[in-house]
């Protein structure tokens, strides 16, 4: 197991390196950051000064060389827009995004799995048809539209919940979190539900499909015949088996939640990383774009690793190869 993890981590370093090259090359092809930064009134001399101050007067391969040399020492460069360390800016935004993503993930599990299992066990009941119809809506309605509708209904018309932004935060283990205050929690609900809607539908479908397949398996019949309670059959024998696809998909989706909750964050003005990356792309803040994508690659690598490890715990048939990969 340890060797496996070390190997995977070493592979991920290579992935991050290749990624940095692709992204750096890519962002250098698009647009001119100087045009995005300088005031209209700046004259030629001032423009040249800005170009020099951002190191853009050098050819791109020199810029990339400098970037790699600095990155090796943990310095991913300074944001063009904010003038501060790109990494620092991203890390500052991380808690907000993680909070939102975790809340959405939690909802997907807590709501999605019971509903999915229920409709898998009672596929003909009226309630399970309602669930399935609902999940189709959850899949197909565009996030940004649903977000705006949420704001219209719950904030503008009913006035129950605040419309945008992140609420009051308190410090927990050195990280600012908002779910511990009522104000923060009320701000979290709408964006989290908005973000979770698609995932809930996805989990319902996976759990239902898994349940319908497994419920007819021999080992379930055998467990019943043995006289185990229905509760135990479902909670232990069935659950464990439907969890494998659910964990795989949720793992990958969690990475997506963190990296690309762009739409929800923009609609709800949620101060997370998704909003940062959109602003950075629009403002051509190259160092932030590059640093962000490198971090996201790392996040995905780590999540995949966790999923692999969880696999082996859930399904003893899956053995992680210790010696040769």
């Amino acid at each position, binding site marked *: 197991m340890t060797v496996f993890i070390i190997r995977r981590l070493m592979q991920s370093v290579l992935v991050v390196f290749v990624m940095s090259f692709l992204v750096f090359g890519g962002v250098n092809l698009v*647009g001119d950051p100087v045009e995005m930064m300088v*005031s209209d009134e*700046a004259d030629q001399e001032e423009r040249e000064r800005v170009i020099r101050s951002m190191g853009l007067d050098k050819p791109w391969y020199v810029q990339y060389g400098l970037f790699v040399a600095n990155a090796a020492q943990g310095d991913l460069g300074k944001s063009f827009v904010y003038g501060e360390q790109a990494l620092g800016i991203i890390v*500052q935004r991380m808690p907000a995004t993680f909070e939102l993503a975790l809340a959405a993930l939690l909802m997907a599990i807590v709501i999605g799995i019971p509903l999915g299992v229920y409709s898998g066990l009672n596929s003909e009941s009226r309630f399970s048809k309602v669930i399935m119809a609902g999940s189709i809506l959850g899949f197909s309605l565009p996030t940004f539209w649903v977000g*705006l509708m949420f*704001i219209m209904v719950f904030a503008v018309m009913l006035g129950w919940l605040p*419309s945008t932004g992140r609420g009051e935060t308190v410090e927990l283990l050195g990280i600012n979190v908002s779910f*511990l205050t009522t104000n923060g929690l009320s701000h979290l609900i709408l964006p989290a539900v908005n973000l979770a809607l698609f995932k809930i539908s996805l989990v319902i479908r996976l759990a239902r499909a898994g349940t319908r397949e497994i419920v007819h398996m021999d080992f379930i019949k055998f467990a019943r015949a043995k006289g185990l309670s229905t509760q135990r059959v479902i909670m232990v024998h069935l659950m464990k088996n439907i969890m494998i696809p659910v964990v795989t998909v949720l793992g990958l989706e969690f990475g997506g939640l963190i990296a690309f909750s762009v739409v929800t964050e923009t609609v709800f003005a949620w101060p997370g990383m998704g909003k940062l990356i959109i602003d950075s792309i629009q403002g051509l803040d190259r160092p932030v774009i590059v640093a962000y994508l490198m971090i996201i690659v790392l996040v995905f690598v780590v999540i995949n690793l966790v999923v692999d490890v969880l696999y082996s715990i859930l399904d003893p048939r899956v053995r992680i190869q210790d010696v040769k990969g």
Partner: protein
Amino acid sequence: MQIRKTLVLAAAAAAVSFAPQAYAQTLTIGLGTEPTSIDPHYHNLGPNNQIAQHFFSRLIEQDHKQNLSPGLATSWKATDDTTWEFKLRKGVKFHDGSDFNADDVLFSMHRGGNHPNAKSSFGLYTKGKTFTKVDDYTVRVTTAKPYPLMPVDLSSVHIVSDQEKDKWEGEYNNGKSAHGTGPYKLVKWVKGEVLEMVRYDGYHGAKPHWKRVVIKPINSAPSRLAALLSGDVDFIDQVPTVDIARLKKNAKVELSQGVSNRIIYLHMDQYRDNPQYMKSHDGKPLTKNPMKDVRVRKAISMAISRDLIVDRVMEGVAIPAGQLLPEGFFGRSSKLMVQKYDPEGAKKLLAEAGYPNGFQATLHGPNNRYINDAKIVEAIAQMLTRIGIKTTPDTMPKSVFFKRGKNKGPAKPAEWNFQLVGWGSSTGEPSSPLRSLLGTYDKTKGWGSSNRGLHSNPVMDKILDEALATVDDTKRAALLAKATEIGVGEDQGIVPLHYQVNTWAGKKGLTFKARTDERTVAYDVVPN
């Protein structure tokens, strides 16, 4: 669990006890564009300057119409053609308690022009000027040549304390060092989340109404509007034109509108002989550039119905333009009128110029920079097609558009031959657009940096040169008007379309003095 319960209760109690008395003294603003820094010398751009002017004062302030009024300088005058003297206000204290005097002015002017990380520096306003301290409350500024724009230039540079010599933008952003003499003190800034400030009671000017101001950046327009309608914020800027008609009927909302100093206009390539985005009417390459002919440029202007654009595309929220600045500004021409829509006259001019069947062109424009920019481009393309200039509209995000639409001198002209852009005159008079948009490209003089069509007329250059060396206001205004009449009028170096009108919205009972510089300033929001 116990802790959590207590926290929840405490927060609930706090919310209840603070809510009533805090309301009337606190203003919450939903802002469309967040600043990139609190450091007033880091980035010379509207979103930054509008925040900076809450915390910092300037020697000379610009009011909502960009008229100059005394700030930290109580009076100023030109003692001769190349020397200006500024008398400073006495008894002013910075937020950290230190006294304001001439040293702070000298330091701020130096820092503004030499900030090492500046993304667009204030050197534009400080270069070529020598600042000397006469005594603690008098500063003398000398220039090599007569320089009439002195007061305007210095009304753009914020004054910081010389106690903060070694501090750069980072320490301003975390509030350790944002000490100015402005009406508000910074409480905290969490990027992308909230910017909070409290009133500074030692402020030398009029006391602002709001004790506390909370600014929330919400850059998605529908969300910003929803935040206002749901009562989460009291006031928003950049109201989309499509929502204005509906908001006018809403009894809970009050709109404030005002014309801005930003003109939307067209640049035409007047340099290349073989423009790559233009073809003859039957699709063959052109032997010469039609836009070099002033009759063709005039025809383009005549073919555009500005009233129609304002009425349909802008939902009535814009003012048709015939020159560089809207009414009420210094140095405007009284002779230049808005071009009348005259498609027949335009066709006649085209025929006279040798294009009876017109030609083909592509009009490029950004699609996320100015109000309704892409729609304007499409409308104009249709209008021009009607007189025979078969125009293809092509719009793209500003990050792509501006790189390719930029001219870097005759050696590297702008890629587009025909493009729609905008220009805001932060100085509040026409010398800046005349110099940058119409002046002959000259790197050493700093002229023509945004002259995307590389228009050039030595006659206008000469008049503008003279204007820029005339200290007498009346004479200079006449010269600037004359230069505009040549550049925009006779030569049609650019085609002006309209002046943008900006819209702010607040809860009923809140009015805002709409600013021509498009800035959103908390102390200009007042209950009526």
